[in-house]
């Protein structure tokens, strides 16, 4: 069973609660700039999209970290696969920021890389999302597989159209 944060874009209102709870959990303050999940609001399209680390199976950040500080671990309570930064090893060189195409990892004021760590199996963004746009779902519900299929189809059609 692998749990992951699943985003239902149709339900997101862009309220920013996820960012506030994330920064509160990790930094003890309500500061969206310190959050590890970020929403982008497209006002005229009436669309809001939260973006958070997808804990890539074959992750760019993990592959290139020159200190070997980023590694896959299994979160014990939820069984979720999570890419974790070892703060003792990370020197803050920022190469992961260059590598992540989604901008989901950043070096913070403490001098080491910060990214979504799934809050030890209880992601606060999910817990407090007032519209239920975020789920911490296990792949038994099939989202993982469905998403993979959709992504594969999209990737194929993208390649064709090129």
């Amino acid at each position, binding site marked *: 069973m692998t749990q992951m944060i699943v985003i239902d874009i149709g339900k997101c209102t862009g309220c920013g609660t996820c960012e506030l709870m994330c920064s509160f959990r990790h930094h003890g303050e309500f500061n969206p700039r310190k959050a590890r999940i970020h929403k982008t609001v497209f006002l005229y399209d009436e669309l809001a999209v939260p973006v958070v680390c997808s804990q890539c199976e074959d992750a760019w950040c993990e592959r290139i970290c020159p200190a070997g500080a980023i590694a896959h671990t299994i979160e014990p309570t939820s069984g979720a696969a999570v890419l974790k930064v070892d703060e003792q090893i990370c020197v803050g060189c920022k*190469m992961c920021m260059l590598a992540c195409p989604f901008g*989901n990892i950043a070096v913070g004021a403490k001098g080491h890389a910060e990214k979504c760590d799934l809050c030890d199996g209880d992601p606060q963004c999910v817990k407090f999302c007032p519209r239920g746009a975020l789920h911490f779902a296990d792949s038994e519900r099939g989202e993982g597989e469905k998403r993979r299929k959709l992504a594969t189809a999209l990737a194929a059609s993208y390649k064709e159209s090129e």
Partner: protein
Amino acid sequence: MPRRLLILGNSAAALAAAGAIRARGGGERITMVSREPCSAYSPVLTTYYLRGQIPASALYLCDAGSYRERDIECRFGVAAVALDTEAQTVLLDDGGRLSYDALLLATGARARRLEGLDAVVAAEICYLRTIDDARRIRERADGAGRVVILGGGLVSLQVASAVAAPGRQVTCVVASRQVLSQNIDAECAELIRAHIEGTTGIALHFGADVTQIVRANGGYRVCLDSGEELAADLLVAGKGVVPNIDYVDRRQIAVERGILVDDQLRTSAENVYAAGDLAQGRNRLTGRRELVPNWINACEQGRIAGANMAGAALSFAGSVAENITTLCGLPVASVGVTRPDGDNADVREVRYRDDERGVYRKLILRDDRLIGAVLLRDIGDVGVIRSAIVGGRLPQGSLQHVAAGPARFADALVRGRRGVA
């Protein structure tokens, strides 16, 4: 008999190759040969060690167990001296000879040495590339009141900031008119210069070449072509890198500035691959075959070369010249073509500058495709911009918006500023 895959080198490209070979699970025999007698370490981290942020032990990426786990036979402390691509063998400096079914050249690059100096003085100049180099600088910096650094690139500035200390005079002698002339434009360089000189005691001399260095009063006297002279107790030079390819016979393998490779990372010799700092492969943005000595490129080329040695047919999408670092507390990133040369009629730049926050960001476009970016201080979205550059796309949103950085465009509007050029 399993196929024998031989890897010369033991850093980013070599490790990525070994990992990719094992990930395919073909059961090949892997042998790694490295001149340095130690497990793999991260040259990227040497400046952090130099400034005392991490212990030497933290530089290592592997220990003996890591190689055992991957069933890699290690021949460390020996170097290749010659290849025979006909017989498919490599001659080592201990007299041994290894045969291969596929060979990866991943011996990287070394610091470019200063030329034309007195031999005794030349031997005492420090460089920063290897773990031994870093140890040497640390030892010699102890008690050195005056440090002169020859160069104004990333390594030189990192060394300068690492050794800067109260009571120590640190001077960089830069041949060009700006810092980071290989990475960024003059305007951004000027902001970095002002930051470095304003926040540290480091002095920067531009447009100055060293004519000679002599020993004087237990230290050195560095003579510049301007007639100026600098006294030094420690000399460090950062003049870029040159590929470690002395063992390669140019009649057997095509070499230009580095070893020429195709998109499968194959050299001109059969069953011989090359990856990393010594490989001259296709640059994704210029289309030319270039040396792109950086860690990310080495990891990616190594991964593809390794997989192909083990029977895959992966193609390398091309390298990207890029760098990200923090200079005296100031984050700076450069990606892709940041100093376009040749015919620039079709090149366009979108620039954003906010002196109050010390932010400078520039996007470089050709034919309405993003080909490069320079970001100073506000670099949080560098990965997204990089992804747009390597994908040959434009990022989402207006270019002015992107140049201004995430959330900053709105700030600028609200404050009634027109930072966007």
